Structure formats: C-alpha cells, structure tokens
C-alpha cells in the first residue's frame, strides 16, 4: 500500500482532527463548564446552534432530491441522488455525534425512545431524526448492497424505495419545521426579529432552499475535487428552482415581519441589526439578485457562488436564532470557547473525510447496475449472472 501524499488540505485536516481529539478529552473529563462558554443564562450555544440546527438543515438535500426523483418522477436527477443521500446520511450521523458532546449525559441519548413525552417538540424531533436516519440508511443501503453484490437484498431495497422516500419526506417535513417549533415556547426570550408564530413554516421553507443549494454546492465540489463530470443542465434546473424557493421564502419572511410590525426594531445601534441585515443579504437578496441574471444562473461558477451565499445565509439565520436572538434576554454575550469551536471543526472535517473515503471505496458516482440486469433471474447456487459487472 502506498503512503498517502502530503498535501496542504490533508495537513489541515489532520491538525483539525488532532486538536479536536484533545478538546474531546477536555470535554469528557472536565465537563461542560470547563469546555464551553455555556452558562445557566445561556444553556444552548454553538453545538446546538451550528452542529445540530445547521447540521440537520444542511442535510435537507436528501429529502428534497429523493422527492424530486421518486415522487415527481424527474428521473434525469438520478445521477446525483447517491452523493446527496450520502451527504444527508453523514449529516445526521454527525448531528448525533455532536449531540453526544452537547448532552450533559450523552449515554442517555436513547431515553426519548423509551421515556415518552409526546407534548415535547424535542421528543418529536428525537423520534423523527431516529426514524429518518434509519430511512436514510436504508436508502443508502443500495450502494453497499451493490458494492458487495448482495443482489437479493438490493432487489428488496428497490421494491421498498417508494414507501421509504414517502416516509423520508414526511419525517423531514416534520423535524425540519420542528427545529423551528423548539423556539415557539420562548416568546419572551427570543428577539422579535426572529421570534414568530410561523417559525416552523420558515424553517421548512428554508430547508427546501438549503436542500437545493446544498445539492448544487455538493455537485460542484465533487466536480472540482473528485474529477467528476459536472451535470450542468441539472444544476441549471436546480438553480432556477432555488430562485423560486428563495423568492417564496423571502416573501413569507417579509410578510411576517410586516404583519408583526417589528421594523422599528432595526435600529442602528442595536447589536441585532448588523447580523439580521447580514442574514437577509446572504440568504435572500444576494442569491436572488445573482440568480435573476441569466448569465449567472446558467454558469457553473455563478451557480456555485449563489449556492454558497445561500448556505452561509441560512447558517447565519440559524445562528441568529440560537445565539444572537437570545443574548438580549440572557443579558450577556456568548462566544464559543476554543474547545467548542475545535470540536465543531473536527466534526465538519470528519464529514469531509468520510465523504471522500466513501467516494473512493463505494459506487457513489459510478454508473449503477445496468437496468436490465436485475430483471435477469438469479441462477441457482448464488452464482452471479454474466450481466452483473459492477465497476468497483
């Protein structure tokens, strides 16, 4: 086996993982007090705001694209479904890992599954995320079955795809919106620029925007770094859909701000204003303006830039809700400690690493099993028919 080449990004990756490993030791030996800047006044910080809320949001490509391909029957998107489902699956695994850091007693993470409180939004989110991770693993299982040639299982999986996709879309709709519902109970704590009774609606709409943007982002990244052919016509179509979705989101958001009459809160000196403006610029105005220009939305770099801005915008939105919007009530500023940041970085870095490894060892981008092959009856004794020539 040849030793891997030393490149700049690989060195960065190793450094991030090493610091993350040290921070992990600090977190689990010294406790949350020593490893975070959280306090009684500020019980939720970066790990909830970014790792969990943004993690789930960024995994929205999974349900958006599976619905497009299987429910709306737009089969031309099929080539990018595997990397998208993989990203979603990885996303949920990493969210769970982040929760193990954030929960005071992570080893009890399974408690909501047996100790019920159906009145709790968090209980509902816990169930949805568990079930949806199962659905994603089953959706993704076809890749593993194909790689190791479990063709009986593969055929069974194909038969279950539609029910799985419908379950996946329902579960995603529920928990993406429910992450917004988590904050419905704090009307006195969350700043009125962000607190609204329609938080669940906004969270769902933004999940669709992010799902589309993430699919564009990831296809572009794969084209840049894994030498994969870029499906530009598909991305153009996604870009146009993203423009519509962003338009709907922006209209709903502005109507809400208008109906609740909170514009006067946007004062120059209030600390919330710049972050609110930044958020609106990144998640609404900039990508909408860019995508309105035909030259931009038909161009690979233009689409890439628009999707990145959009993703940054919605990340800002989630962080504003989880952190900026809660600071005034808490009466104190919160900025994450180095341990919080390095663990978050390490989790993101391992996501990239696992994705790269999966692309290398699993048929993520390769052509799928030829369509006629599965119709061929299996020969006795488990011998594989001639047609099964999976590139691996």
């Amino acid at each position, binding site marked *: 086996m040849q030793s891997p080449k030393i490149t700049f990004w690989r060195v960065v990756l190793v450094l991030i993982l090493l610091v993350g490993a040290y921070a992990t030791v600090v977190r*689990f*030996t010294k*406790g*949350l*007090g*020593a490893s975070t800047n959280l306090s*009684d*006044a500020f*019980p*939720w910080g970066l790990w909830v705001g970014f790792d969990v809320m943004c993690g789930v949001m960024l995994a929205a490509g999974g349900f958006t694209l599976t*619905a497009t391909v*299987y*429910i*709306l*029957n737009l*089969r*031309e998107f*099929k080539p990018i479904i595997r990397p998208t489902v993989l990203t979603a699956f990885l996303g949920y695994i990493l969210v769970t890992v982040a929760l193990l850091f*954030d*929960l*005071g*007693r*992570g080893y*009890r993470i399974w*408690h*909501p599954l047996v*100790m019920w*409180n*159906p*009145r*709790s*939004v*968090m*209980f*509902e*989110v*816990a169930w949805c995320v568990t079930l949806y991770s199962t659905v994603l693993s089953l959706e993704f299982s076809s890749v593993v079955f194909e790689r190791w040639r479990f063709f009986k299982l593969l055929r069974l999986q*194909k*038969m279950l795809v*539609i029910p799985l996709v*419908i379950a996946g*879309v*329902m579960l995603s*709709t*529920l928990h993406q919106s429910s992450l917004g*519902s*988590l904050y*419905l*109970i*704090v*009307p*006195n*704590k969350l700043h009125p620029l962000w607190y609204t*009774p329609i938080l*669940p609606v906004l969270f769902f709409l933004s999940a669709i925007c992010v799902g589309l943007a993430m699919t564009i982002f990831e296809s572009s990244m794969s084209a840049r770094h894994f030498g994969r052919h870029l499906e530009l016509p598909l991305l153009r179509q996604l870009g146009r859909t993203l423009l519509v979705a962003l338009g709907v989101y922006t209209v709903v958001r502005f109507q809400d701000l208008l109906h609740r009459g909170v514009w006067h809160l946007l004062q120059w000196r209030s600390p919330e204003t710049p972050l609110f403006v930044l958020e609106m610029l990144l998640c609404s105005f900039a990508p909408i303006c860019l995508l309105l220009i035909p030259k931009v939305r038909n161009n690979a770099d233009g689409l890439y830039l628009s999707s990145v801005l959009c993703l940054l915008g919605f990340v800002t939105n989630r962080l504003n809700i989880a952190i900026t919007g809660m600071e005034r009530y808490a009466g104190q500023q919160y900025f994450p400690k180095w341990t919080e940041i390095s663990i978050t970085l390490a989790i993101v870095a391992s996501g990239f690493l696992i994705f790269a490894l999966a692309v290398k060892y699993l048929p993520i981008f390769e052509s*799928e099993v030829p*369509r*006629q092959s*599965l*119709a061929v009856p299996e020969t006795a004794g488990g011998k594989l028919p001639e047609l099964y020539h999976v590139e691996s």
Partner: protein
Amino acid sequence: MSKGILYDATLCIGCKLCEKGCAERNGLPYDDTIAAEQKQSEHKFTVVLTRNDKFMRRLCMNCQDPSCASVCPVAALRKTALGPVTYDASRCMGCRYCMLACPFSVPKYEWNKPLPLVRKCDMCFDRVARGLQTACAEACPTGATMFGVREDLVSEAKDRIAKNPENYVNHIFGLNEVGGTSVLLLSSVPFEEFGYRTDLSGEALPLLTYRVLSHIPDLVTIGGVALGGLWWLTNRKNELVRAEHGNSDPTLGGRNDYAKS
C-alpha cells in the same frame, strides 16, 4: 387539592432562614458565603434578594402548566396533582431545553460536573406528599412564606391587598402569569425591581407549541396520501408517454421502473 406557597415581601425580615431550611432539606452546603450570594444556582434553589430594606424571594414558581415539563423530551420534569413540579434525575439526558424554555430561568445546571444534572426547587415534593409544609415555610419565623391550598392562598392574598392597599402593589404575581403558578408573590415595590418580568402573558406557554404539535397526526396522514397520490399521477403520466413512444425513453419512469433501474 393543589398546594401552593404565598410569599408576602412586606412581612419578610430578610433573615434567610428559608434559604437555610431549603439547603438542609436538599442536602446542599450552606454558610455565610453562600448566604451572601444574591442569585439562584445549582447549589442555591431559593434566594432572598435584598434591595435596601426591601426583600424578595426567588424560587421555582412551580407553574400550573410548566414549560419545563412540557418541553422535557424524556418527561423527567412533571407537574404533580399536589402542585410541585418534580425532577426525576434518572431520566434526564441533559439537553437543557428546560433551562431555555423556563420563563423564569429557574432550572440550573451542574456545569462543573462530568455527569451533570439539572437542579431546582421542587416545592419539597416528598414533604408535601406526607402532608407536611415546605422546608422554607416551616423555617419562616414571620409567616412571610406561607404554605397551604393554592385557592385559599389566593383569597388570603386578595384580602391582604384589599385591607391594606397602601402596603402593596396591586398585583398577585403568579395568579395569572403564564397560566398561573403554585407560588404566589406579594410586594410593596414593583416586581420588576427584583428582576421579575411583568410582560408575561396570562396564557400557559406550552399552548404555543401544543397548537402546532397537535396538527402533526393530520399532517402525516394528509401528506402521506398526497405524496403517494402524486407519485401515482407522475408515474402514470410517464407510463402513458412511454406506451406511446414504444418504451424508448430511458429517462422516463414507469410503474415498475423503480424496481428495475
């Protein structure tokens, strides 16, 4: 009968014996340093706030419809019929949603322990269940902290305000706040001065989430049928197109297409 606590700040002399009684009952340390601390914490469930010659207690309000119990995903926090809001430490996974959700920011966390728990006043549930009064009420030498049936305490509080309106702010804090609380407060100075919020709605906060959560079963059934139907429609359309074109377009789906491709 739901029990409650009535704290009348005008009768309080700031002796902090309630703090001491509370610490003893909960097995918490108590000395002069801790007595001087002017905030609730994981080792101090109740505190007597002092502003010049005025006093005000802070403790868990033990809401009638508590946010903490509503948001807890593992039902570690519960409202008992007797009044106290209890905490079952063996269930808690440490998500701290109760701390975020509590309108009075009462639950505190053991931030410096590797395996932390939420700590808060539970209105001496074990004592109340045995027919005793809370430790703080028992320790109070002046009757400023009074334990009893909540309804009786409400009429008592109304009487006191009616008899001596000049001594009181005309407000029983906890009568209607967030749907009412088991702990009721009377004061001669505005409650805001001691950090109590007076902008709390009279409606229980869990209703805000319940209104949304209660739609979920409907949403799931409607969504399931709609998505299934949509799949059937789009599949049928493609099947028809395919039949017309002699099954030549591989990008079109069909009824059995998903099982093959």
